[in-house]
């Protein structure tokens, strides 16, 4: 019998080179790929939006977003992805599709997207300036506050963009991109960020 293993290879494993990139000096943009997350698409069945919302509230302790927003529960983030649907982002199998299937049985259809996306977290003084090259969304703090979300496109590529909680006083923008587009968008991001100086890393922490 052949001896083989099931190593995981993320869509950015090769393109991402941790460290500094672009202009020298203090990095204006910080890019962190978040790896190995669970992501489940929850879509309420016809006429079951109320039940789905109730089930979500019971499971996560917070209401699922009904408008383009991302809400943080204790161990998951619920991100609006369309009318009567949202994504559940979590770690370590706490909200895997198998466990959520029981929660939403009869009220919602679930689809596993854990491998379908790459998650990139963008912060730094120049994060907004860099993202303005990629996104038509107004990211001014008064307009796109913590928890704001958008299903939009960057570089002709579909992305889900949301603003997470600030980290060390700085805004954090998260973007979920389809896995097969990830390397291409990553290069575009690097090109856009290079003039500000970039620090690149990856993390297993959401």
């Amino acid at each position, binding site marked *: *019998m*052949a*001896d*083989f*293993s*099931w*190593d*995981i*290879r*993320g*869509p950015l494993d*090769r393109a991402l080179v941790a460290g500094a990139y*672009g*202009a020298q000096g203090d990095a204006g943009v910080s890019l962190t790929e978040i790896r190995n997350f669970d992501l489940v*698409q929850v*879509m309420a*069945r*016809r*006429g079951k939006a109320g039940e789905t919302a109730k089930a979500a509230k019971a499971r996560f302790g917070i209401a699922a977003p009904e408008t383009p927003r991302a809400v943080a529960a204790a161990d998951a983030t619920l991100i609006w992805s369309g009318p009567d*649907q949202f994504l559940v982002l979590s770690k370590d199998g706490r909200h895997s599709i198998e466990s959520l299937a029981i929660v939403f049985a009869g009220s919602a*259809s*679930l*689809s*596993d*997207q*854990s*491998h*379908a*996306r790459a998650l990139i977290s963008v912060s730094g003084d120049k994060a907004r*300036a860099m993202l*303005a*090259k990629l*996104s*038509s*969304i*107004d990211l*001014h703090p008064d*307009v796109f506050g913590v928890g704001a979300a958008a299903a939009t496109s960057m*570089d*002709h*590529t579909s992305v889900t963009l949301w603003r997470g909680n600030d980290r060390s006083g700085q805004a954090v923008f998260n973007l979920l991109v*389809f*896995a*097969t*587009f990830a*390397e*291409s*968008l990553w*290069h*575009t991001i690097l*090109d*856009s960020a*290079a*003039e500000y100086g970039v620090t690149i890393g990856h993390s297993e922490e959401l």
Partner: protein
Amino acid sequence: MRGDQANRLNNGGLIDRSTPLNFRFDGKTFSGFKGDTLASALVANGVKLVGRSFKYHRPRGILTAGSEEPNALVELRSGARREPNTKATTAELYEGLEAASQNRWPSLNFDVMSVNQLFAPIFVAGFYYKTFMWPAKFWETIYEPAIRRAAGLGRAAGVSDPDHYDKAWAHCDVAIAGSGPAGLAAALAAGRSGARVILCEEDFVLGGRLLADGDTIDGLPASEWVARAVAELEAMPDVRIMTRTTLFGVYDGGTYGAIERVNDHLPVPPEHQVRQRLWRIVAKRCVVAAGAIERPIVFAGNDTPGVMMASAMRSYINRYAAAPARRIALFTNNEDGWRTAETAIAAGLQVAAVIDARPDVSPAHRSLASKGGFSVLHGAVAGVDGGKGGIRKISVSLSGGARAEVEADGLAVSGGWNPAVGLTSYHRGRPKWRDDIAAFVPDGAPPGMVAAGAANGAFGLGACLREGFEAGAAAARDAGRSGSIGSMPVADDEAFSLTPLWHVAGKGKAFVDQQHDVTASDVELAQREGFESVEHLKRYTTLGMATDQGKTSNVAGLAIMAAVSGKSIPETGTTIYRPPYVPVAIGAFAGHHRDENFHATRLTPSHHWAAEQGAIFVDTGLWKRAQWYPRAGEKDWLESVTREVKAVRSGVGFCDVSTLGKIDVHGPDAGAFLDRVYINAFSSLAVGKARYGLMLREDGIVYDDGTTSRLAEDHYFLTTTTAKAGLVMQHLEFCRQVLFPELDVQLTSVSDQWAQFSIAGPKTRDLLKEVVDPGEDLSNEGFPFMGAREVALRGGLKARLFRISFSGEMAFEISVPARYGEAMARNLMIAGKPLGITPYGTEALGVMRIEKGHVAGPELNGTTTAGDLGLGKMMSTKKDFIGRVMAGREALTASNRQVVVGIKPTDKARRLRSGAHIIPKGETPGPDNDQGYITSVCFSPVLDQWIGLGLVERGRERIGEIVRAHDPLRGEDYDVELCNSVFYDPDGGRQRG
């Protein structure tokens, strides 16, 4: 000449005399200062001749000091960065700048083509059409190349631009175009009220005309007021000041285009920086404070180097401390022009005379003249005696009829001012004529936009400040901002008095459009020949069609047309205004999207593994797909592909098919939903089974095909072709949301979730046994053809296994979550090593599908029906489905339709090529006898010959018939036999075995 700057004034100017900059013009070294433009530095160095004109190669100098410049166009930089037709008047000077004059040979001073002037009578308006009509075939081969060599402007670099460009979005409450008094006042009012403001200024310094014309605002010298205003604006966090940025267009929904020349003022952009950036500014309101453009008066010799707009002369003297001439004459028809005389005197220059076209001048100006010792001549400039060395003498026709001569080396001209009505007119707006200022002003504007100040016809400084401030305040208010706007800046309004004068009759060429060499007599000729409409005038004479878009010439041209056609100027009207306001590099519009970044790229989960294997990739839509895997010693693609096919047909191979679209279809009504979108039934499909499905468009034509599996009662897994993945998803969403909202069904794209591989060949089971958990039954009984279910793999991973075959061999498709895709490829290679496993690419995949007669993109070409593809029997008669009714139309069911059939050459050694037309034997090729064409071809390793599929009229009834394959594109004509489209294993025993 280094460091000469003979015409630099000793004092004043907004130049930094502590930072001298060296530059080269036509190979000669000069120096200027930081703060200069190339034009001002040339003026400071006494250079008057800077270019040759487009058609007549006449010597030309510098006419203006801004982006309206028609003459002083140069090639900036060299090599790959050479930038033709760059306006010297806006090019910022930098150390080492290199520029060359254009359209001359061998040199600017001695230009052979200036003989064109001698032939001027034949170069009149419309001369291309008149002179080069016959013989027609000479146009492309002789006339056009010759004309192109002789006429034209700068030379493109001819090689790829080494610099980068990007694009960005910005959002604000109020966008302001222009930072003159009106723009700054608007920004102050809007900014103070709390609005988010973007102030765009095309110059590299803020202030607009205030930089040249001084004046007093709020009791302060203008320069000081500007500095204070800018400081106040810079302290506001939501005010963004963008210099070197031209707001060039207005688009739908309050979106504005702007071009920022980020690093044009440097020889080479710093590392990691772009040269230019294209902005899309989304603004709730927009204030156009783009000012006005001083207009020339058309007279003989008005293009002589040394003739300059009066306001430009003030700019050079006051802003740049550079004297365009030592002894200046002024020709004006308005009060404002006189400021140039005042400026010249203040700078210690001589004023030779003021030629004023108005009947009278003010007492103040009379006393200025007597103090300054120059005469005031009532009349008009009738001609200029001069040439490439500049002006020698000016001839004046006095209003009494007498003539006078003025000796001067510079002539300032002011014919009044034209508001910059471009932006306000870009949505098909037509400006309206105002008699009091003899100019067109905006008549309304696109939604959310308003003009203020000189751009709105308010020429007094006080009025500019007032209009700007009020427009800024109103715009902010409309955007919902209500903060205190503070006090309005105040200044006096200058007297405005103008007597319109457009054209002075005289001997010699009088230019209307200097960049395109259109003269007053060309306009008159156009009228005589019937091209009287301004739109015809423009096209016939090319007036206003040069890179400056007629900023200094359009109004004069139509005024002359009005005069000769006996109409008023408003009756004559204006041409349509279109963006961009200034030329914008195509590179800026492309931004990041060039070369390998032309579009986004999609990579399959096993891409990097395939690259390691040396795969050749092919672009399939956005995807990179492994096309074949060459091995050492193979001489061409055909040898590699043939090997791959043979390996699959005799052993086992695998191919990444993750590019197929994959859609989760969920919900209690999923089966009913699929029944409606597919022509065949899916609600009857058992859990654990897969079925081939075909969907039609509403019009009955085939849309897409693929295999759909039922994984649970309420969960189907649908696949699409690679090409149609996104479109089918859209189509299904449309069906779900709009056509069948009553169905309880949910859709999610899972194309990126799963890495999917096709494993094919008689040894497939032997391979899978090594990969799949030994507890899984893969026998025909345990996993029959078209079975589909989840299985465990060795090592515990779950996978989905589908027993489907595109190759015609015993085959499975296996899916694992995408991040395991690369491991799957590696593990298949490890497990399959004893079996001689062979990875194969899209070419081998295509060969095997043609051998099996499976239809693909070339046959699903948007014109074929299910019947054409031989799949008519799949159309269920027991249910309704999209396209059913329309598929029954007479023409779609006609017996003579072109249908899929197999094709093989009668000469076994011949290569087939797709695209060849099918003609009956003995008939002449042509549309009447065209019976179809070859859609797909391949070399079949199994049959050891080329085979193909075709769409041929009544093809299936004609099996065995010999027809002609006629290929005029490749010059081929040969006989082929129509045959069964399934070339290989027609009864399908191998895939079921």
